[in-house]
């Protein structure tokens, strides 16, 4: 009654999928799936057997199923969760019971995120989107393949955040350390799988190009 938020009442039961772009309060039962771009609040009275994905999730009730919160996942003292937790930030209050795997790292949100991209494969986290090629560097009239580094001199007045040519952080790190065998345990999320033997060659190539 108070807040006119989307609500599943304590006595109500939904079997199926609930999706939406707003906040949702669950006091009752949901069996199936919840996919929300908004805050999901699972009350102490609620029993949810569903795969849950939302921007922010607060659990005070019972959940059986994996929970993914792109931002924060909050387990209140009365929470009972069986399932894997994935969240950008995680709060577990004393009293909450959890059984399942926990992954706390920045989740892939709507916008492009690069943070932790290089670490993600090593941490065994969820797949991030494939690395994007650097944005075109405003070289409007460069038709000839002549090498003119002055065009993208780093001492230029600072570009806007979005225009700044992006350099993959991982490659930079590999160069400075001089380590090539720092291969991730899992293959990088590249579009096509590069054979293990070719990896070395690719990295060296980047090095020579980066330091002419």
């Amino acid at each position, binding site marked *: 009654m108070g807040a006119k*938020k989307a*609500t599943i009442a304590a006595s109500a039961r939904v079997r199926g*999928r609930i999706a939406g772009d707003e906040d*949702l309060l669950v006091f*009752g039962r949901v069996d199936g799936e919840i996919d929300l771009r908004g805050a999901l609040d699972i009350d102490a009275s609620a029993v949810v057997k569903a795969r849950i994905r939302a921007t922010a999730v607060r659990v005070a009730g019972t959940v059986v199923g994996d929970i993914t919160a792109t931002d924060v996942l909050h387990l209140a003292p009365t929470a009972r969760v069986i399932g894997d937790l994935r969240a950008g930030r995680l709060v577990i209050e004393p009293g909450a019971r959890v059984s399942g795997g926990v992954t706390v790292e920045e989740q892939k949100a709507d916008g492009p995120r690069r943070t932790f991209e290089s670490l993600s494969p090593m941490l065994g986290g969820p797949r991030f989107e494939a690395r994007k090629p650097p944005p075109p560097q405003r070289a409007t009239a460069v038709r000839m393949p002549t090498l003119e580094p002055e065009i993208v001199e780093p001492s230029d007045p600072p570009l806007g955040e979005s225009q700044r040519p992006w350099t993959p952080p991982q490659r930079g790190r590999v160069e400075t350390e001089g380590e090539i065998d720092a291969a991730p345990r899992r293959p990088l999320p590249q579009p096509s799988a590069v054979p293990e033997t070719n990896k070395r060659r690719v990295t060296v190539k980047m090095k020579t190009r980066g330091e002419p």
Partner: protein
Amino acid sequence: MSATRIGRSIVVTGAIETPEGVVVEGRVEGSIVARGHVDVDRRGVVRGDIVARTLDVEGEVEGPVTATDRIEIRADGTVIGDIRAARILIADGARFEGTVHMDRSRDDD
């Protein structure tokens, strides 16, 4: 206690059951079985059958609807499907395709 409300951007694919009421401002692809009042808001869309005690349709319903007491299709409302209730009100301007069954025996006054 908060009533069940399917918000404007919410899409429920499946069944909703409640001994109370439901307000549908979003979309329900599936059935609603409620023992209270079901309100299909002006922006609400239900594709599936509805069972309720009373039903108000200002939005769009596609499917058979049954009410133990009363069904009202408001002026902006659309119902495509058979309706069955003790009392049925269809406002001027409402859109309705289907058959009407008035079951007077269920009328409690």
